[in-house]
């Protein structure tokens, strides 16, 4: 394989990893809130979270591109803060990927929190543990499997991203050219051999990661601590 291919692969893995970490940080409180709330806006928010599952990535990418444009509020604020444009940058890809992979983080986490959350939190409160204390010592460890599933699915889903990246990131080597776009490039230029080897790598990585999750989930008990 040639060098640009490896660069695209490395960029893709970095993007997936950063996206997963960002989603863990922002998705966990949102998933917790959704799992505990009795608010009337809950179904509305759940629908918003699930939207990326059904929308064509181009629709998502189109509106993100509009929002990230240098003359749009978000794009302008980003330029003021960092001196770089949000569109056609790695940061822009991360923003797009976070939204694109949001349901893959939120839904498994929410399910895991709902399974044990309230009753375990009440038990913790009856033993004088405050809400934050109880979350980190009880709810989060009990949701270990949920965290793992959510992280792996978010990571794997981001690996395969194409439409959103194409819309907001374009095709800039080392900056926004991820594997899926590289494959598209190879096919455009009738370089089927390189397209094939990259595709096989992507299939293998996704397959191994997903198999690992399903094996892990089959195990009866998860022990931590």
């Amino acid at each position: 394989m040639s060098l640009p291919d490896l660069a695209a692969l490395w960029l893709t893995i970095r993007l997936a990893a950063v996206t997963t970490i960002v989603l863990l940080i922002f998705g966990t409180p949102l998933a917790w809130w959704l799992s505990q709330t009795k608010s009337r806006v809950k179904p509305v928010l759940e629908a918003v979270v699930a939207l990326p599952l059904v929308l064509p990535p181009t629709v998502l990418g189109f509106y993100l591109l509009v929002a990230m444009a240098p003359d749009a509020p978000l794009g302008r604020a980003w330029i003021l803060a960092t001196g770089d444009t949000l569109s056609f940058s790695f940061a822009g890809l991360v923003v797009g990927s976070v939204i694109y992979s949001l349901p893959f983080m939120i839904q498994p986490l929410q399910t895991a929190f709902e399974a044990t959350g309230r009753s375990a939190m009440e038990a913790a409160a009856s033993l004088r543990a405050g809400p934050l204390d109880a979350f980190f010592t009880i709810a989060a460890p009990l949701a270990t499997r949920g965290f793992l599933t959510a992280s792996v699915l978010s990571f794997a889903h981001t690996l395969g991203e194409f439409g959103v990246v194409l819309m907001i990131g374009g095709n800039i080597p080392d900056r926004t050219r991820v594997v899926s776009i590289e494959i598209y490039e190879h096919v455009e230029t009738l370089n089927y051999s390189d397209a094939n080897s990259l595709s096989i790598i992507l299939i293998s990585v996704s397959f191994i990661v997903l198999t690992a999750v399903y094996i892990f989930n089959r195990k009866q008990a998860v022990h931590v601590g």
Partner: protein
Amino acid sequence: MSVDGAYVDITVTRPDFQLEMAQTVPTSGITAVFGPSGAGKTTFLRTIAGFETPTRGRIQLGHRTLCDVAKRINVPSHQRPIGYLFQDGRLFSHMTVDQNLAYAEARKEIDGGPSLKDDIISACGIQPFMDRRPETLSGGERQRVALARTLMTAPELLLLDEPLGALDRQRKLELVTLLVDLPKSLGIPTLYVSHDIDEVSRVADRVIILENGRVQNSGPVEETLGAYGLEAGRNPYESGARLSGTIAAHDPNYGLTQVAIGENTLHLPIHAAIEPGARIQLKISPKDVSVSLRRPDGISIQNVLKGQIEQIEEQGQTAFCMLTLSVDSQQLQARITRKARSELDLEIGRSVYVLLKSASFYR
């Protein structure tokens, strides 16, 4: 303002249900909250613990106000000095038994007192499985661990929410003594929710009878349950009646114990060392009770009580009828044939001799 024990005067409103009650929980002993499913017993406990918020009212524990809706005071549940034993124990499955206890101990309010950990562990009999995971324990073992864990926080009030509900009969017997003795020896006032009349009469000193979110009656266990059963025209003692008596003396020669019930004395084979003067409960099934118009002699049944017929119920088309008898102003039931009733000419108000074929006792 300060109260002795706990004072609870609350209204909890739900779309399909309203709980409204004002009760004082004494500083010591066990107060049962008794009633059918859906009466609001658990809601009552959960509101005291702070898991539910009342729409009106006040909850006071000693000098602390835990909740006062009018003054917008609502202490969060984790800051209330209250222990809660859930029906299913709710042990943390990702921790060992030891870690479960340590979790509670690490968070108790520091008062400089000596750690009760070892005492609690040995009283609950859980040393053998300190290193085990909750899922490897039986239901009874789990509840013992859960009780120990709750006591670790040195609560000022203990709430037991159907703690025996998930257990089979044998396990219940094992646990019930522990549930009665341990909080008492630690001096923790206890609220005990149950829909089981057996448990309530064995465990509690006082009872609050709750139905459809309203208190029907409350007070000392025997009078309250007895009065309630008759007033409501139904019988909560369906599985048998209970007589309360006092241990008078032991007769080691025959292996019998004398139990005084009013002016009557029973001789029972109680194989337990109970000091004279102690109160015990006798459970007597209606099929083990006979009646006689004269004091019988030449009969192997030795336990005879003087009583009066209070009520006679025909049991449908069966050959039997149920007599409710008053013995030393306590109630007892006898199941006799309708034929016997008619031949002996038994009527309400008539004095009879009550013959007991067998009785089981509880402390």
